[in-house]
């Protein structure tokens, strides 16, 4: 337990921590759906490992969110007993798995953002945030190394693998902008020195993305439209089904000990 909370609106801070935690939780859930079904045994292992890291990070972020909120909610209570409108993850991470190319591209686009966010958070004014980021950044460096490597190799593989990766990129591109859009919640944590301005991560993200796409001979999609809503609780239809799955036992057997 660290000292007093930094000077920041508690509701905004809670919301912002849920954004971090929910991104990890929902993406971890999606990745874990592949278990036993991936194209090759090494990928089954890599996917389980990635999901495991993300669930571990969820425990830290949502645990801290509960602490900041101060109403006695644990990470589990937040994960299992909120409905979709209270979830704060970006829409990108709840996109369906699609084929393995879609799953990898979603991972790459997210990892390239995640690493920049965590690097910046290591300098957070809240030492609790800095500590979690320092641990998570090491794991996410591996996630990015793997996803970038596979995006490059598949982009520059066969005609089919190239076409699949390009299709995945085109389809997911409109869901990337939300990661860089700031609202009042972001402004509050930025002002308190807790977190970086989301827009400030775009240049480095763009650089990582451009390198991956370039080496993978993929083209950046045209068009500027970007979906938004996940960060404020307005989700796609997909999230309801994720939660129906994830929360089933806690909802059906209230008061159980697991």
């Amino acid at each position, binding site marked *: 337990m660290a000292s007093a909370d930094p000077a920041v609106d508690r509701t905004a801070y809670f919301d912002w921590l849920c954004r971090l935690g929910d991104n990890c939780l929902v993406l971890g859930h999606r990745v874990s759906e592949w278990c036993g079904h991936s194209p090759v045994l090494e990928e089954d292992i890599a996917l*389980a490992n990635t999901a*495991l890291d993300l669930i571990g990070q969820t*425990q830290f972020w949502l645990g801290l969110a509960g602490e900041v909120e101060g109403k006695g909610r644990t990470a589990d209570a937040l994960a299992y007993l909120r409905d979709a409108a209270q979830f704060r993850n970006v829409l990108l991470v709840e996109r369906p798995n699609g084929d393995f190319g879609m799953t990898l591209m979603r991972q790459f686009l997210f990892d390239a953002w995640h690493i920049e966010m965590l690097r910046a958070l290591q300098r957070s004014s809240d030492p609790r945030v800095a500590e979690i980021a320092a641990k998570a950044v090491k794991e996410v460096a591996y996630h990015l190394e793997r996803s970038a490597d596979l995006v490059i190799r598949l982009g520059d593989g066969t005609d089919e693998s190239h076409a699949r990766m390009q299709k995945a990129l085109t389809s997911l591109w409109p869901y990337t902008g939300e990661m860089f859009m700031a609202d009042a919640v972001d402004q509050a944590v930025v002002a308190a020195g807790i977190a970086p301005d989301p827009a400030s991560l775009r240049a480095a993200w763009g650089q990582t993305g451009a390198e991956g796409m370039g080496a993978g001979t993929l083209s950046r999609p045209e068009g500027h439209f970007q979906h938004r809503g996940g960060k404020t609780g307005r989700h796609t239809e997909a999230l309801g089904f994720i939660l129906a799955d994830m929360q089933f036992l806690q909802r059906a057997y209230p008061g159980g000990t697991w």
Partner: protein
Amino acid sequence: MYAQMVKAEGAKSREEMTEQERAFQDRIDRGEKIEPKEWMPEGYRKTLIRQIGQHAHSEIVGQLPEGNWITRAPTLERKAILLAKVQDEAGHGLYLYSAAETLGVSRDELLALLHNGKMKYSSIFNYPTLNWADIGTVGWLVDGAAIMNQVQLQKTSYGPYSRAMIRICKEESFHQRQGYDILLKMCLQGTPAQKEMAQDAMNRFWYPSLMMFGPSDKDSVHSAQSMQWKIKINTNDELRQKFVDQTVPQAEYLGLTIPDPNLKWNEEKGGYDFSEPDWDEFFQVIAGNGPCNAERMEARVSAWEDGAWFREGLMAHARKQEARRAAARMAAE
């Protein structure tokens, strides 16, 4: 374990053996390990490939019934533990396919045999996981039965298999404990509904777990040769008895009833008497008629076929890179 009814090749008496075969048998009898490049009878090699291959397939098919509950695990901690466990199973598959490769068969060849139905995996994975207590029960009973067999296989005569088993056993005992821990929570601290779930899981998994050891010794035609080669150390019935004796007090502690009216301590033999599983059911499951055979095979075959573009893409990239390096070398010369 996860090797059942592995057909052994070439049972020969000492008199029928060639000098080379006798020398090989002498090494085994002295407890020496056989290593990959050393001479071995063809039957020994083939039997091992069947056993290790079946074991490896069981590990990867075994991801499916447990993976079935990862997205629905009831807490973040349980989810993380289950993910780690299923990841371990995939890792076991990897060690075992590698051990089989040292006998001259590739992973792709073994997978092709699994996919066309010529090789099997353990019958247990053809049973469904229907509630969360099944995940506890699979860890406790199924991994428990597997360990019973694998502990002895650490002493198996083939070096790479023995070394893989030593590693696998360490992880499996964690798996068994995590399974039992799930049930401890549900049975001793949980609600009546949770305890009911646990009893339901016990009722469904007890006999299929007993089947994991394979048919009774009197019907187990291949055991003798495998034991002579020390590919197998204990008989099916010995292991089954040991498993029952170990499990009954654990069930009692949980307050669960073992679904066998004939289960009774036998002072004279120093072990429990118990009912045999329904062997007709076992042979039906082996023949492909278990509750989940079709789904399990379809899941594995689809994963492989749907992933073909991925594997080909990576191979194509590797060839391009190689060509680029060759061109760069030429240009530099």
